[in-house]
């Protein structure tokens, strides 16, 4: 196709691999668009972006983007990203991960990344189900939702990922759905500019598995559901817990400034090189 007639986000994608493998109406494509839009708004250098992903539908995104990317083992993208960031702190490392990747198998890596407050941007695409493997219930599936492993409805209480990461020590936490792309790209812009661990949870649609098993067969039905069920955080603070049953609370949960991990490492190296000894904390092995 003529280059002037192309979508404005195609220039960031590997054209030879398009159209991508995602189902018709999958939210991953929308999240790609909002990420590029947020990146443009944050005026970031695309050459410095490194994308890291684990395993899952959402983790196929970096394969389509024309930047340095790493497709890693299941649940471990944040560990690999920590290594990339510390080896070369001027890189802007972005982790694309799914709910199975971040909450189920890689839950520990997620909370320890947040605890260290390392300068990563983690975009967690939460589609409430294990979409790639056949629609099994995931740790974030809402109570009572159906899946191939829960024919009578899920009984467990789902993880609130944003709350978890906030209490683990992340400095920027926000949650939006794919039906609110403008707010989502603003959040991505803020997350990219934030120096510290930034976590964005995007509630996304999976019409093929979650929608089909929960009476929302088309992507439009799913997006309408997300739009109707979402409550902005400011309003949700005033509502009781019964009223918030089954609702999606969206908004910004955390936006603070804390010392960042890779900077601390750089300071440590600097002080070690100039004085010969590390003077960050009082060591038990160090004499008076």
């Amino acid at each position, binding site marked *: 196709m003529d280059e002037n007639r192309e979508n404005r986000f195609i220039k960031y994608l590997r054209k030879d691999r398009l159209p991508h493998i995602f189902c*018709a109406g999958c939210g991953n*494509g929308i999240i*790609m668009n909002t990420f590029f839009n947020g990146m443009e708004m944050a005026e970031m250098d695309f050459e410095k972006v490194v994308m890291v992903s684990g395993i899952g539908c959402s983790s196929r995104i970096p394969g389509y983007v024309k930047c340095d990317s790493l497709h890693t083992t299941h649940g471990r993208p944040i560990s690999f990203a920590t290594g990339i960031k510390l080896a070369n702190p001027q890189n802007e490392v972005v982790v694309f991960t799914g709910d199975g990747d971040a909450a189920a198998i890689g839950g520990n890596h997620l909370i320890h990344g947040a605890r260290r407050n390392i300068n990563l941007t983690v975009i967690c695409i939460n589609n409430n189900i294990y979409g790639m493997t056949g629609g099994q219930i995931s740790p974030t599936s809402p109570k009572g939702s159906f899946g191939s492993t829960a024919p009578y409805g899920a009984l467990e209480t789902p993880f609130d990922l944003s709350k978890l990461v906030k209490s683990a020590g992340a400095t920027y936490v926000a949650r939006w759905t794919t039906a609110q*792309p403008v707010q989502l790209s603003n959040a991505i812009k803020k997350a990219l500019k934030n120096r510290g661990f930034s976590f964005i949870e995007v509630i996304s649609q999976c019409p093929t598995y979650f929608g089909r098993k929960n009476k929302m067969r088309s992507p*439009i039905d799913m997006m309408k559901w997300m739009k109707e069920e979402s409550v902005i955080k400011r309003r949700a603070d005033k509502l009781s817990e019964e009223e918030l049953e089954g609702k999606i609370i969206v908004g910004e949960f955390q936006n603070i400034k804390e010392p960042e991990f890779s900077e601390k490492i750089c300071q440590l190296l600097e002080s070690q090189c100039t004085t010969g000894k590390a003077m960050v904390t009082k060591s038990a092995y160090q004499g008076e």
Partner: protein
Amino acid sequence: MVDLMITIDEDLCKGCNICTEFCPRKVYQKSDVLNKKGVHVPGPENEDKCTKCQLCVMMCPDQAIKVDEKVDEKDED
């Protein structure tokens, strides 16, 4: 004078119809005709209603839509 052009790339569109539903001015219409890939590609039927909010460009999961304006040389400084 601003002339508007909406293009939908038939090779990329998968026919999810998110654009027909979420366009605030209902510019897009569903189509009954299958293209060579077996997809009902929606068409921009009411182009004159478009306000260039670019929501469809951001909402298209397959990066198939382009909305641009052809600005006359007179308007440019």
